[in-house]
């Protein structure tokens, strides 16, 4: 039996006290334990930013790469060895800003990884610039007149492009979040969990109090994740209420199953027939 504590890591944490990321790490551990997934079966991949430091704070295999590029790394790793569970931690700037194009491509590939976006609506590690999910008008040191772009809606985007598993979590609701992550890991295909994450140092608008007043659980309220139209509605906050939970889920064919060759097992493990290669080259 894998326990959450097995993922306990004694490397010094580098986040601010009170940061919403702590809740996310706990939820991840819970989910991994719930699925009885040992570290040997799990690969964490991340970009660059506060969110992207996450893998350092769990005891696991990980690859902490470049700002914006985690999904590409994760895709390569998953294709190479599709027997392992691949979890990706990215910030909102990381995933929807620098990495926006890979986000689109991951949805289209339906690559079987679980993407956790620590969506704090701000660039944390670089000290508080507006992010793609910051509201228009969000004031920062460098956006004195407020952010000029409209915010991206990642949930709506994913739904519009046919994503099969789309959820919105909240760092303050660890149980719900842990359960969403578990479901995401179980889902065969690309799963997006956009996580409302509080940044106590740079986002003084979207605080714990702010979310507490707004976030509500749609599944508890009877939402059926198979209902695309309702999902599209829940993609957008309604007035002051922010829907959280599993917004949409449908059956899909994950990417590695779309590659005929991989039906024979993970690429890494497949036998390489020297004779066959030699004769193919001879006849080429």
């Amino acid at each position, binding site marked *: 039996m894998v326990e959450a504590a097995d993922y306990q890591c004694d490397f010094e944490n580098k986040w601010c006290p009170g940061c919403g990321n702590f809740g996310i790490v706990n939820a991840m551990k819970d989910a991994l334990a719930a699925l009885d997934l040992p570290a040997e079966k799990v690969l964490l991949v991340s970009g660059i930013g506060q969110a992207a430091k996450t893998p350092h704070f769990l005891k696991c295999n990980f690859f902490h790469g*470049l700002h914006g590029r985690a999904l590409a790394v994760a895709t390569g790793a998953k294709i190479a060895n599709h027997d392992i569970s691949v979890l990706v931690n990215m910030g909102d700037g990381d995933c929807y800003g620098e990495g926006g*194009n890979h986000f689109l*491509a991951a949805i289209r590939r339906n690559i079987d990884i679980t993407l956790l976006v620590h969506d704090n609506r701000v660039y944390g590690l670089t000290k508080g610039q507006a992010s793609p999910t910051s509201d228009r008008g969000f004031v920062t040191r460098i956006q004195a007149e407020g952010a000029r772009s409209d915010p991206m809606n990642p949930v709506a985007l994913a739904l519009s492009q046919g994503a099969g598993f789309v959820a919105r979590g909240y760092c303050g609701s660890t149980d719900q979040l842990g359960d969403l992550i578990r479901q995401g890991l179980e889902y065969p295909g690309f799963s997006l969990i956009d996580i409302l994450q509080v940044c106590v140092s740079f986002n003084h608008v979207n605080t714990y109090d702010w979310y507490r007043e707004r976030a509500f659980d749609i599944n508890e309220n009877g939402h059926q994740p198979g209902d695309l139209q309702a999902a599209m509605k829940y993609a957008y906050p309604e007035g002051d209420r922010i829907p959280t939970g599993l917004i949409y889920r449908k059956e899909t064919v994950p990417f590695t199953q779309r590659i005929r060759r991989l039906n024979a097992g993970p690429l890494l493990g497949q036998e390489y027939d020297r004779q066959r290669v030699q004769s193919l080259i001879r006849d080429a």
Partner: protein
Amino acid sequence: MGIDVTVKIGGEAGQGIQTVGELLAQACHQSGLYLMAVNDFESRIRGGHSFMQLRISDRPIRAPDHRVHLLIALNEWTLQTHRSEVTQGGRVIFDSEAGGSDELILPVPVTKLARKAGGRIMANTVAAGACLSMLGAPVKTLEQVLRQRFGDKKAEVLENNLNAAKSGVEAVAGVPFDWAFQWPDRAPAGKLLSGARVLALGALAAQCRFAAFYPMSPATDVMVNLSEFEAQLPLVVEQAEGEIAAVNMVIGASFAGVRAMTATSGGGFALMSEGLGLAGITETPIVLINSQRPGPATGLPTRTAQADLRFMLHAAQDDFPRFILAPGSLEAAFETMVRAFELADKYQVPVIVTTDQYFNDSLAIVDKALELPEGIDRHIVGDADMDDPAAYKRFAFTDSGVSPRALPCSGKALVMASGNEHQEDGHISERISDRIGQMDKRQCKLEGMQKEVRVPETVYPDGRVLLVGWGSTSGMIRESVEMLRAWGVDAGAVCFTDIWPFPEAEVTEILDHCRRFYMVEQNATAQLGWLIRERTGRKFAQAVLKYDGRPFFPREIADKVKAYEEVS
């Protein structure tokens, strides 16, 4: 002198110039001849002007010739542009119904004959027939090739093509041609391959299992050739959403444990440069082919250059070790790919293999058998190799700088890697000791890497003057040296394959033997020349540079060097 004849086929893109070329090339190959076919085309799909230059010989050849013996002009433009290149005794077959042949031009109603044989599309076959007939080839040669090519199509297709070929042959029957020659009836020498295909085969031989790419001329064909084997081997070729994704996917796949590569050209390489550094600091083995074309920026997308050398050498912030290998022949390219994957794994570094459009898109005979390496060492450890897997440190300090590499999710040993500076176990660290330790660890691999480096190949190394180049121009340089020697210039050649780590001592020694050396490069600034100065202190006398996007002819190199010699 044996056979040495060049046929040039020119027309619009979409007219099937390449098909004519391929038919001729196959016919030559079937007859046991050697050949080299160089493609010249614009960045468009239809129209414009393109041509293929096919040099045929009874000995291996490694360079195109500037002289044209037989020009096949499928349009007026080709005739006007290239007629002056036709050498003494040469002829032009010109697609025209006008008639009125003269000493040079032989009008043949190629299109009309094609239509008669079943359709315009057969024009290529008509042209090939006429051409082979002029060259004195036995009719059966082309027939054989057509049977191979169209054998599995509808019977009618083959029939029509055979008729088309015959009408081409007949159209020039009895026309005298000085450059016709006696066709041998030998078994084919080696294999007829393009540079792109050889690179792909080399990757296969090295057990490459994953390739990601974003289409970019002239690199795409490497991937096209590789993807052909996807169904038959444990191999996945994935088109990425851009070059940044491609290189990061390759890093991910390699980190997870399979040999992986990408191929691109200038602009794509630029986009990959951040990823190159990531492979550097995470010590993830990757192989990256950069097939060069002229820039800056989009430049001349379908043309050739050797102008990214310094960029490849210095791409990405800060210092880290890498290999740069530039094969000078098809045979070398196959072996270079095998070496590239081996070196990447052994030293846990990125390896750049660089070629160019001329190299990738040209066809030639590979004379050496393409043999798989004896065995492949992945230089990987597992739990069983460790005293205590729980204590495994991916970036442990070692004397060689190379740390034992375990794969993630392959045992109890946790594999942790970061693009930030890190401590031995892979966790990020800003400690001075970790920083210096890891930098020194990475940099000190260069010592071992230096020993792997091959000395540039030389011909007539004792020559008074040496011609120095790198990569694909090796063939032209060698042939130009022969010309120079025939003209009484005591010349030799130095052709670099391995450029980085730089073979300092050996190159210094070679260069110290000559009176003067000349750089021969397809760029505007003699990039290798300055690198030689940097690393050896030796300075080239002059540089023969070509940067118009077209490959060198041996003769133009020889001419320039001779002119320089005359004033020096």
